[in-house]
């Protein structure tokens, strides 16, 4: 396909809409990763949780013929799977990274194993008639050209991703639970000394991250596609973690970073029709992740130096006022 067709594709509102759609399964687990990371328990098992939830949603909806039961099952399975991480790390003293890796491996193998048992197929669940969550048409906006194409007609997970971005912000900064969660992540001893139950708070944070990762997984298998595929998360759980750091560990930043990754992904889709080796195109989202993280890390170092400098100068100023005060 000639390049000008691709460029026209990129400039169309459909492309922007596709960015939002593609970003959804990154934003949701990233919000979960953000919560657990702020609580001081980095959840590296997002990938695995997404996978088991995506699987459970497809299977349950296929066998019950009820989409919502499938969604519910996916959420429950995701939270339970996350609580396994809490159990291993918080109560059995396993290293959280190792436990997370184990859960990811178990999810990748386990879902295929169960898929094979249930369908006889190791690749995907196309033989099962699983459900899809409905799309939402926003009344007034839908009829506006461009804006309607971009913002209306997405599946509910996409809208949830943005709604939750705001809710997570309110939770983390305005509610006692969220504030305690951040306190625990920053200085657990201090949090404990004022009566905050550190382990329980961290367990809740991990459960919440499981909830958000499960939504991410479900958005893949019950909205973006309507079947389960071997390793269908394709590293999105890890990209989500990258988005947490790139977003400066804030809800809005995390979502914006996720959209940047979604953009790279959408771009790769467009370039797929060009006459270049597909391997190069498929590298785009991952290369974007690496480049973004390097830029972020350089910026952070510069910021840290700046802050250190301000702090040192501020302290000298403060001593001066203290001296003046005691004179």
């Amino acid at each position, binding site marked *: 396909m000639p390049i000008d067709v691709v460029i026209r594709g990129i400039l169309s509102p459909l492309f922007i809409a596709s960015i939002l759609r593609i970003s959804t399964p990154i934003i949701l687990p990233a919000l979960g990763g953000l919560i657990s990371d702020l609580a001081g328990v980095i959840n590296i098992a997002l990938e695995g949780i997404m996978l088991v939830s995506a699987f459970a949603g497809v299977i349950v909806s296929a066998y019950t013929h009820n989409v919502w039961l499938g969604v519910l099952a996916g959420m429950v399975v995701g939270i339970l799977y996350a609580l396994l991480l809490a159990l291993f790390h918080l109560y059995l003293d396993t290293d959280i990274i190792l436990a997370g890796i184990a859960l990811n491996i178990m999810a990748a193998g386990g879902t295929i194993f169960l898929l094979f048992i249930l369908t006889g197929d190791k690749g995907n669940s196309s033989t099962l008639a699983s459900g899809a969550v409905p799309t939402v048409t926003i009344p007034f906006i839908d009829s506006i050209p461009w804006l309607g194409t971009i913002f209306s007609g997405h599946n509910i997970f996409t809208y949830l991703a943005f709604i939750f971005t705001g809710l997570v912000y*309110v939770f983390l900064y*305005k*509610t*006692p639970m969220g*504030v*305690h969660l*951040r*306190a625990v992540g*920053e*200085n657990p*001893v*201090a*949090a404990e*000394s*004022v*009566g*905050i139950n550190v382990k329980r708070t961290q367990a809740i944070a991990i459960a919440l991250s499981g909830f958000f990762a499960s939504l991410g997984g479900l958005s893949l298998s019950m909205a973006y596609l309507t079947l389960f595929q071997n390793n269908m998360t394709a590293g999105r759980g890890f990209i989500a973690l990258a988005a947490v750091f790139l977003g400066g560990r804030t809800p809005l930043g995390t979502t914006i970073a996720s959209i940047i990754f979604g953009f790279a992904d959408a771009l790769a889709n467009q370039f797929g029709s060009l006459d270049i080796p597909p391997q190069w195109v498929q590298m785009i989202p991952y290369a974007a992740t690496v480049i973004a993280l390097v830029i972020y890390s350089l910026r952070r170092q510069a910021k840290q*130096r*700046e*802050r*250190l*400098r*301000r*702090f*040192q*100068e*501020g*302290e*000298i100023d*403060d*001593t001066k006022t*203290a*001296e003046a*005060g*005691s004179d």
Partner: protein
Amino acid sequence: MTPIIEMRDIVKVYPNGVVANDGVNFSVEKGEIHALVGENGAGKTTLMKILYGLERPTEGEINYKDRLLELNSPLDAIDNGIGMVHQNFMLIPSFTVAENIVLGEEKTRSGLIRQDQAVQDTESLAKEYGLRVDANAIIESINVGMRQRVEILKTLYRGAEILILDEPTAVLTPQETQELFKAIRALVDQGKTVIFITHKLREVKEISDRVTVMRAGKIVGTLKIEEVTREGLARMMVGRDVLLSVDKPPSDRGQAVLQVHDLSYVSDTGVQMLKNMSFNVYAGEILGIAGVEGNGQTELVEVLTGLREASTGAAYIDSRDILQADPRVVRMAGVAHIPEDRLTNGLALLATIDENLIVDRYFRAPIKKGFRIDQGAVKKLGNRLIEEYDIRTINGQVPVSSLSGGNMQKVIVAREFSSDPKLLIAAQPTRGIDVGATEFVRQELVVKRTEGTAVLLVSADLSEVMSLSDRIIVMYEGEITGVFPDASTVTEEELGLYMLGVQRQDVEEMEAVL
């Protein structure tokens, strides 16, 4: 007066068999400032941990306001109006002052935290007790003195009537200490009771109404402050007479060992920490550096010992510039270094005493034998130094982390002194260690100097600088602002003026005696 707290027959035996408290009777009256003093390991922190619910006593009981107090956790203590300000602050660095003060007890409206209320509560509390804080400032951006005031406000916010302050002045400058004392007096005026743990006998005299002395897990005595002298207190703490003023023979000054020329240092963040410093340290003298902490002393020591790279200037030992050398080369040139932060830079905590004693010499004879370390020689050296420097331990094969602070410092002193240095750089050599160990370290410094070693002493303890040094230079904002060729004729007040940058000497005047 009746006591508000009475701890009776407290015994605390730790699982490893250490008896930290051995039948302690300790009582505090309402509205007093009660100092609790004792050497490291005397059991005072354990006693206070019991009172704050962090440790449970093996035996004994606590009577509080005429009823028995059962403490299972600090929360019980807080509920009963007992608050503790720990030595390392319990604050969340990225939160504001107000957020830290209300943490765990946030007031909410329909589920959301009332931030304005937190700020308001903080400000009214701060005003009530005269504890100056900025409610909206982030903890990371405020200095140590204000952080401590935040900690005190935190306990007050939780309704503390009794405040336990664990060595609160250890981290403060003299000015901040005075401000803290003012605040403590204001607290007591408002009916609060303060228990003040400290090493510093001068502060005991200055601030407290009564003082309890502990030694080896027992109470030696409780006295009214009018009844005690610093010397008397010191004797009670260590069970013998202590040298508070150091006796030292007159200095027999020799050649210049270290010659520093026009030394400047700009930090990574672009702040000029040292400005054109020039001075000599001579064999057989102790050159003391006085100054409020944070005026470049740390940087000076680290630049001289090869831990940081100087920006410009030179420092010669035997006409050899050591500024461009790495730490091992500096050491081989005859420099020994007692670092300011012994836990980070002075010792490998998990390594054994013996291992810590050989880290500056494992690579040469007699420790190195062929391509291996001669364990026999290590043990021999360890035993000799443990004996010579009176390190209290079973043997040299236990990890350094099992020692008390004073004994850890002795391990460093043993290593550094036994390397037979030409120049000894001692940074805060007695910080946070008990009276007995302090006395020991100070005496050893004087002995080394009398034997002909050049000693550069950096200390935040002004009385230490004044009593040990032969000459004193004052640093203020990275510059030398005053030189006193005869330390014995200087007064604390005079030094203070230079330390605060109120006065400075002419450059020519100083050059003559540097």
